[in-house]
């Protein structure tokens, strides 16, 4: 099946004086998917996103959204796009509900039927004043304003950093619902687990360039998860040499292994023993880079 490209970024370069924001970046976001944009701070995620919305002028390259030119047809694109900036700021000293209605009106929309339920789900009091909000609550206002006008495309820059775990869950549910309604979501994050939880595909950016675009499932299979189990009885490493398991180590009564697939089999093997403690961890972004792209980095160094 040929996927329809909703956002197509071709050879995007953005220079800030002599400093490179992004260089020859290529990326496509398909209609109806949730695309995660993953990378460490300063990698160029925000620059890419803000170029899409014409908040900054690109130095070179082309961005097409809904088949329209991102700069020339910016207003038409924004009519169908909701956006949460990475550093979301609002008008001080107004009621949150008034502020949201104001932003709705700027979109030529007076319908508030989506705003109220979103506020309820994110546990945000709309009667508060904008200057009284905590950082987390401000972010909730930002999330609501990006979604409330029912846009076809939702672009979010670091939407999860600042939400507590319960809210993150609710937020992910909301995003999946949006996807089920046919919306396209492009969100950046520097936290791998947040992207894994909700995204269909992920693009990994480092030093201003997209290094890889992968289905989340493929990424998970390739990187795996780290399982750490502490046993109350003797065991041998050989017991865990199963299919889809690698890097098995023993450490003072504990076993540490990387699971790529076959979690069932691993659980069976583990349950043959008395378990004192168990921990299943996702690789951190840095570990992911070290593990998944070590070869790439090595070859880069080799070229240099």
């Amino acid at each position, binding site marked *: 099946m040929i996927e329809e490209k909703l956002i197509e970024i071709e050879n995007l370069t953005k220079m800030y004086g002599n400093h490179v924001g992004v260089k020859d970046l290529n990326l496509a976001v398909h209609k109806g998917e949730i695309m995660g944009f993953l990378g460490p701070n300063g990698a160029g995620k925000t620059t890419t996103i803000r170029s899409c*919305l014409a908040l900054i002028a690109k130095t070179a390259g082309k961005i097409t959204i809904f088949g329209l030119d991102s700069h020339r047809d910016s207003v038409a694109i924004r009519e169908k796009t909701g956006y949460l900036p990475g550093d*979301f700021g609002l008008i001080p000293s107004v009621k949150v509900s008034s502020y949201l209605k104001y932003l709705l009106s700027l979109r030529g929309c007076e319908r508030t039927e989506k705003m109220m339920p979103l506020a309820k789900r994110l546990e945000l009091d709309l009667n508060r004043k904008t200057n009284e909000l905590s950082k987390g609550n401000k972010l909730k206002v930002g999330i609501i304003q990006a979604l409330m006008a029912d846009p076809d495309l939702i672009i979010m820059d670091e939407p999860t950093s600042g939400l507590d775990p319960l809210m993150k869950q609710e937020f992910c549910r909301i995003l999946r619902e949006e996807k089920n309604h046919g919306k396209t979501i492009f969100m950046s994050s520097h936290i791998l687990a947040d992207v894994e939880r909700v995204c269909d595909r992920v693009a990994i950016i480092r030093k201003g360039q997209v290094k890889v675009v992968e289905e989340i499932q493929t990424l998970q299979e390739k990187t795996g998860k780290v399982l750490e189990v502490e046993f109350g009885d003797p065991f041998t490493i050989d017991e865990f040499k199963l299919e889809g398991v690698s890097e098995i180590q023993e450490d003072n009564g504990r076993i540490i292994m990387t699971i790529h697939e076959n979690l069932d089999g691993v659980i069976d093997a583990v349950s043959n023993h008395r378990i004192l403690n168990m921990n299943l961890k996702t690789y951190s972004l840095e570990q992911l880079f070290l593990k998944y792209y070590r070869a790439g980095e090595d070859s880069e160094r080799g070229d240099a």
Partner: protein
Amino acid sequence: MMAGRVAYMELRTGWKGLLIFSLLILVISVGIVQIFPTFRDSMIEELEGANKVSLELPEEQGGNITLSWESLDNASSYMVLEDTRLSMVTAKLKYAGRETSITFEKNFEEKRYYSVMALLNETSDPMLIGIATTEKGENPFQELMQNPFYKAFTGGRNINMLETKGFITLEFFSWWWMFAGLFIAYLSVSIVASDFENRHMDVLLSTPVSRRHYLIEKFTAMTITAFLVILVATAGLAGGLASINALNEFPLDIVFLSLIGCLPFLMLITAVGILTAVLFQKVRAGMGITFAFVFAEFFLLAFGGFSKSLEWMKTVSIFKYWDYSSVIIDGSFKAGDFLLLTILAIALLIIGIQIFQKKDIPA
């Protein structure tokens, strides 16, 4: 998007500040008019004081001048100073003694001023008895009011401070520009620059509001604000004038016309404020530059009035094109100037829009 939304929000969030400012304008405009009767009475008293000195001029050059003055009971002696300037900064001692009259030869052509003072017994400070001039029919006290600094603002017109019109022209309008101008300068910079500083610009410009539209709406909000400020000042001045029964001398339509003339002047300041906000994206920097602009324009007009060779300065000052004294004293409203400043303000706004469309919004 719905037109007028950004402007409406600006007015909605800024109404408290506008209300406080309006109250201040009311208090000051009504208050200044209230001062007038007291000021006039004390001035008349002072002018009468000048009559305590009389000067008799000779029929022809080379004759004698007789300068006499009223004696004071507690005076130990008298002192007469002579100068070619009314300011008496280069005065020479003409006479010191107990006489109350002196006679001397008129061996000069230019105008001279004589200031007569009494030295009192109990204090060391001399007391002014009066001032006289060799120019017939001139009152040196009234001349004192015609400071070249003032003259620049009255278009060289003779302003009588003892009339309501003259008093309001000099005492109200000579600071009104600063009061209204700086308020508008502050607001126009901050309504744009604060959207940058509050990190609100990203959200605003992610809605289908174009940058052009955004700036036009901010400009509109400021023009409405300036108009409201003018209406409040009109109400304040007219109210004050009514309370001292002076509305027949200075009617409401003249009050309004003299003030509405500053609308394009304030619009121009708004355009400069918006332009600097777009350029520097910081409230402080923008405000510093806009304030400097207003003061620079003011001094161009003021210095331009000092001599003929400096008159070009007036032409490039925006203050020249808001001639309130033309309305108040001559009763003529300069529609051409009004239009010129309006066009200039719109031109500056267009430049601001052009710059804004090319600028990156800082993250």
